């Protein structure tokens, strides 16, 4: 009996160790935010659709990881070591705990702790986006400007709920950003890795893959993201009204490109 209990404890310790892989991975992501490599990247994007799905570019694409949501919503497992652009990279698999969302794979440089490759796949295994360094010049350089922080604020979450009563996104997604553009008011929702963008606009938008929209009073509410179309439509179906006053308590985040 004692031996059985001991085995259970050891087993529990081992599995708990795998679940804690999220924290070192999150730390790698934080390190990666501060540094940038110089080299050539090949990126392939199938959603949203673009004219040239695959192209070469200088900048490694950003993925808006949200650490506290990532730890809550994803299983993170170290899945071996591979070579990317001639360098050793630790591969991490990120599997969502909720239905319908994309799976991710991230290769982190074993020495520099910066991402060398990243891949998004549908639950069915189709590649949605992929980016990988093909060559790297020199050592990582320090970024002078950081990323716009993702909001972790209960008051903001309640305000978004008050602004759009009846909005029913999948439970894993929470509001993490807010900006105002020439299109209208934009809200960003994240599950830790996957993003859904919501727009409150004076005009409608044409239907397309990954786009749901409906009229709510004088406004048009759009939802854009790599989720099943049925999930996007269901999320908007219950929106009863649009109120801007709750969001008026917050300053919209600046466009990162400015």
């Amino acid at each position, binding site marked *: 009996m004692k031996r059985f209990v001991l085995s259970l404890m050891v087993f529990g310790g081992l599995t708990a160790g795998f679940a804690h892989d999220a924290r070192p991975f999150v730390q790698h992501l934080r390190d990666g935010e501060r540094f940038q490599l110089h080299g050539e990247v090949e990126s392939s994007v199938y959603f949203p*659709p673009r004219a040239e799905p695959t192209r070469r570019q200088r900048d490694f694409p*950003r993925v808006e990881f949200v650490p506290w949501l990532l730890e809550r919503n994803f299983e993170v497992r170290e899945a071996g070591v591979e070579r990317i652009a001639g360098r050793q990279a630790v591969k991490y698999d990120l599997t969502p705990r909720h239905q319908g969302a994309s799976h991710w794979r991230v290769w982190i440089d074993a020495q520099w702790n910066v991402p060398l490759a990243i891949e998004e796949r549908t639950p069915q295994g189709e590649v949605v986006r992929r980016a990988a360094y093909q060559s790297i010049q020199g050592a990582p350089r320090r970024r002078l400007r950081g990323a716009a922080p993702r909001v972790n604020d209960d008051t903001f979450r309640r305000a978004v709920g008050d602004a759009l009563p009846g909005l029913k996104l999948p439970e894993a997604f929470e509001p993490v950003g807010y900006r105002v553009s020439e299109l209208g008011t934009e809200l960003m929702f994240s599950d830790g890795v996957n993003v859904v*963008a919501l727009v409150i606009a004076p005009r*409608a938008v*044409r239907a397309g893959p*990954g786009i749901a929209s409906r009229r709510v009073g004088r406004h048009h509410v759009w939802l854009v993201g790599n989720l099943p179309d049925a999930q996007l439509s269901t999320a908007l179906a219950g929106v009863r009204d649009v109120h801007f006053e709750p969001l008026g308590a917050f300053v919209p985040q600046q466009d990162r490109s400015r």
Partner: protein
Amino acid sequence: MKHTRPDELDELFAQARVLTVQDDAAAEQAVQAWRRSRRRVWPARLLLTTAVAAVIGGLLLIQQDQPLPTSAAYDVYRQASGGSW
């Protein structure tokens, strides 16, 4: 054929330069006719301007009702999901 003497011509020209009541009346008729023609032109121009403004306004209104292309939504998503893809 009778030829007019130069001094008779001078008298004729002098008489022509003197304004009479008939000259005043003729001048007044000409001015009134010109004013009437101007009044006819102004309403026509106003009507044309109003019609053009109405057409342009109507076209703008129709354009406002047209949904934006899918690229508008995808651009928002690209910005939200990190950029540089």
